[in-house]
């Protein structure tokens, strides 16, 4: 399972089509992957497991989300004012 994910990350080109977000508005796609990355990190590190599978979510949100949005959210997470549930 981990190999499959590792392969996918190694052969990553760009964010693939996500059937959960089939329409023009991709705002939620970007935000969801950002959330999923941080939740994945939190969940795996709290169990003491390797969090390298979470890299997939990071690659996807980096592809989709504008850099200014990511900087703002990263700042909010540091401050503790991030509105999403991580």
């Amino acid at each position, binding site marked *: 399972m981990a190999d499959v994910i590792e392969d996918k990350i190694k052969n990553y080109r760009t964010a693939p089509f996500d059937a959960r977000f089939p329409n*023009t508005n991709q705002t939620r796609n970007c935000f969801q992957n950002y959330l999923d990355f941080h939740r994945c990190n939190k969940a795996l590190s709290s169990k003491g497991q390797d969090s390298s599978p979470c890299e997939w979510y990071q690659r996807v949100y980096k*592809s989709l989300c504008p850099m200014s949005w990511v900087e703002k959210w990263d700042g909010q997470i540091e401050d503790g004012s991030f509105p999403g549930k991580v």
Partner: protein
Amino acid sequence: MAHPTQLGFQDAASPVMEELLHFHDHALMIVFLISTLVLYIIIAMVSTKLTNKYILDSQEIEIVWTILPAVILVLIALPSLRILYLMDEINDPHLTIKAMGHQWYWSYEYTDYEDLGFDSYMVPTQDLAPGQFRLLETDHRMVVPMESPIRILVSAEDVLHSWAVPSLGMKMDAVPGRLNQTAFIASRPGLFYGQCSEICGANHSFMPIVVEAVPLEHFENWSSLMLEDA
């Protein structure tokens, strides 16, 4: 790009735009045929001395001029829907580029691998080199590999803008806080020009878009150079 006294569309640079061009030819031909027929009938009616005061109805012609327009509408609708669904196909992009609208310039972000981002300002008229186009050239172009499906995510950092490139058949509104997705394939290498298409303040007419489609190796060289410069 557009040229003086142009009447039709710009030359198509993507498969979708080619389809739109052909569909427009088809629909416009129907429009011309109907208009010519109507104009002929008007002239014929107005320029005759003959009169007929005794026609009350006619089932046959009523049937013809009901069925025939319905058929014509179907002949327009079918190709139109075909293109609509073609544009909606699930495509598997090779590259994602973000186009962010600002007052009054565009910025492009290529973040699939490294964080490459740069601004694209219009070249002022007094700084144009000979042969360059007034109000259309930019200091940095959005370079893309040709013949690859590319996803563009359009957004804005302040007010509404709109990212439009007519020869690629593309226009997508740039809304702050929203990420709008569109996709294209550049069928041939070249420079494709566009302009901001949503009023956004004093310099709305002065924030153009230039897409430069190049072979893949040239794109890779360009992105390495841009990353070094940044």
